[in-house]
């Protein structure tokens, strides 16, 4: 057996935390030495687990090899592929299961998190930031959850970027099921990571744990939409603890879904208004082409309509009254704007800036 195999066995002692394992390794020098010990300086329960792992060692390793064949890889601290960003984490997991690839050190990453039940505004923004960052070659880290997470990651992949999802369950489980397409695409254009063994169900207490990994893997963390008591704020706390920059997207002041973001801004988080803010936080060149000013290039009749549509979904009824146009004429202009990519029809009657 190699050193790595011993590492694998030790990393999966359920009752030995990553922190304790680190201390043990420091104490004995290497994984194989720890493993060969008869009695570890731990409590009786952990000792019993240790004993069991020793007995089942062959079985556990065979299981790992079988996963390997199924495309589920495992790496640990000592492996060169192990994300360096995790090494600074006090309670970094000893090993990671992953499908696809792992984020590389030299590629900048941005975490995008937010509400699951997000508004159309939030969805739109997640799509915009996820897409543009992905296109720029910045790895988008998130949790593949419904809402903001999934939308941002899908957008990054759609525009040819890389994205990595950290799951709160085994990497062989697609949770939530509705993100099946994303799950399959991530394997090809990025990776799916988890510190939990394949087959582990998505239990509620796993999610705060996986949030710390999202925070650790991200060079900068974007919060798109969060209620005042949101799981995303756990990720933010973790990110701050690890010295990562946090950017929060403002919303309307009376919007409950943006209350968490506003709270963050009040506490000193950066203001997220365009991708330039992200590049700046990453220490990259602020990109010149801010194409949102494109409104200036629009011709008169279209521009007038475009200016009336803001970040909130606008109903055609309101446009009808404000513009004084006939419905047919208005529809024509809206279709034209949509064709040019300025706006999007989000429900049968509502339009939104892209």
């Amino acid at each position, binding site marked *: 057996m190699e050193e790595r195999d011993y590492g694998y066995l030790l990393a999966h002692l359920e009752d030995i935390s990553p922190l304790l394992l680190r201390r043990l390794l420091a104490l004995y020098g290497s994984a194989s030495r720890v493993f060969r010990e008869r009695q570890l300086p731990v409590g009786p329960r952990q000792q019993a687990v240790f004993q069991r792992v020793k007995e089942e060692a062959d079985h556990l390793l065979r299981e790992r090899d079988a996963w390997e064949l199924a495309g589920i890889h495992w790496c640990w601290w000592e492996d060169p592929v192990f994300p360096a960003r995790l090494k600074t984490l006090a309670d970094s997991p000893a090993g990671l299961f992953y499908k696809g690839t792992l984020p590389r050190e030299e590629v900048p990453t941005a975490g995008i998190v937010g509400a699951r039940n997000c*508004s*159309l505004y*939030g969805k739109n923004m997640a799509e915009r930031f996820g897409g543009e960052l992905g296109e720029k070659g910045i790895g988008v880290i998130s949790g593949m959850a419904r809402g903001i997470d999934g939308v941002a990651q899908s957008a990054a992949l759609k525009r040819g970027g890389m994205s990595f999802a950290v799951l709160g369950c085994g990497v062989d489980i697609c949770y939530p099921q509705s993100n099946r397409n994303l799950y399959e695409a991530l394997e090809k254009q990025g990776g799916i990571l988890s510190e939990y063994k394949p087959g582990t169900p998505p239990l509620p207490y796993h999610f705060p744990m996986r949030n710390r990994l999202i925070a650790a893997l991200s060079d900068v963390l974007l919060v798109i939409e969060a209620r005042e008591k949101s799981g995303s704020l756990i990720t933010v706390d973790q990110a701050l603890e690890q010295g990562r920059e946090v950017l929060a997207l403002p919303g309307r002041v009376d919007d409950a879904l943006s209350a968490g973001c506003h709270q963050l801004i009040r506490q000193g988080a950066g203001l997220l208004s365009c991708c330039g803010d992200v590049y700046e936080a990453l220490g990259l060149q602020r990109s010149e082409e801010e194409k949102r000013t494109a409104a200036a290039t629009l011709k008169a009749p279209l521009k007038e309509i475009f200016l009336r549509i803001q970040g909130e979904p606008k109903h055609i*009824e309101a446009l009808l009254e404000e513009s004084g146009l*006939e*419905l047919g004429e208005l*529809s024509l202009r*809206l279709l034209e704007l*949509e064709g040019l990519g300025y706006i999007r029809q989000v429900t*049968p009657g509502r339009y939104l800036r892209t």
Partner: protein
Amino acid sequence: MYSEAICMALFGMEGVLIHVECDCSNGLPEMAMVGYLGSEVREAKDRVRTAMKNTGFQLPPRRITVNLSPADLRKEGTSFDLAIAVAMLCAAEIVDLSALLPKTVFLGELGLDGRLVPVDGILPMVGSAKEAGYALCVVPKGNAAEGALVEGIRVIGLESLEQLPLLGQGKLPDEPCRVSDLMKEETARDQVDFSEVNGQLAMRRAAEVAAAGRHNLLFIGSPGSGKTMIARRIPTILPPLTLSEALEVSRIYSICGLLSQEKPLILSRPFRSPHHTVSPYALVGGGRVPRPGEISLADHGVLFLDELPEFQKSALEALRQPLEDEEVSIARVQGSFRFPADVMLVAAMNPCRCGYYPDRNRCHCSDAEVSSYLRRISRPLLDRMDLCVEAPPLGYSDLVRHGTNESSEAIRARVEEAGKRQAERFRGTDILFNARMNGRDVKKYCKVTKEQEGFLKKVFEQKGLSARAYHRILKVARTIADLRGAEEISLSDLAEAVGYRGPEEKFWR
């Protein structure tokens, strides 16, 4: 002595001739009724005998046999009473109606005092009697006005059995036929009017377009945004019923016993709004001997389904065939029954369970919940909804807005004009309205220019529309052009039609 009177049983929309044969012979005094009778017909025995006794007709103490022929057809309903009484009185030689019997149809239920009680389905039965070549129909007085709607047959209203001798002597007057008078009568002003609807320009417009081309219409919107209010007012912008339409509607209402005795002709467009707990049979019609359902009662009018996703799936699916064929056909052992069902379907629904999506400050439904709510309506049904509009939530200023809104009358004038254009265009075909065009007709009547073709192509790629949606857009655009009074479809007509597409096209992802 033997005698025979004729009456009718109702099967679907038609009356079937039933011969009531009666024989008085020597034997123990007894009355026997045969001929595959339902229990209410068997009970006629006691009603008829008691009614005779109370009107002073003394039946001889002889053996009386009554047969309702054809004997293999199950008889149901109470309209046979009068014919049974007539046949018995003639067979017992108490009343002499021999001159009338062969060419007269007797319809009506008897009370124990000999009074004639009105029955359902007089209008279609009198119609069938006329078709079968009978010259006279004797019906209860309460049904006389209804029976007299049929032209070309005499109808006499009978109040009680006592009047039978008078009938035999030809002393009872015919009920006057008042169809043309009724048609001319000022239609009772509708209870509701579009001028009561503030704002809601997009929904008003959609209602107008839908009414003009008889397109099916779907409203989506949060609670209290006026979906039901507008739907109720759609019949007021449809043109008034024509005589043949009015008669057809009245026939259906007659079968269901919904006609008034004084004004038996339905003149206003039906508006039916069944509750969402309605069963499939109540919605499209059914029963052992089928009766019309809500969709037939809404014939030539509006069938409004409020809270569409709450309807039973089976009820909604049952609507598919009638919507396509404009009639309901129900097969039974006795044969196939057809009821007209030429309706304009208007449906309303919330965008999600709580009703406020996409307003995330009020709606906490997850995306999966929203889409599963929408998925309760099957794709084939959505495909039949030509227009779909989203109702914006109303602000306070909309509620208290003063100033005048367009009245139903003004809108109806435009709708009628568009109707005339359509009638002109479809002359010589069996299509009446744009909504009824099929794929081939669309190609023939909805011509688009090269430029428009390019526009449509772009929109299609941009929005990922289906082939079905293509036809729908063209049909609706045709109606919009008709409303403008134009023969050519314009680009803005097409754009507006594209705007009416439904929730099936990958919305609410």
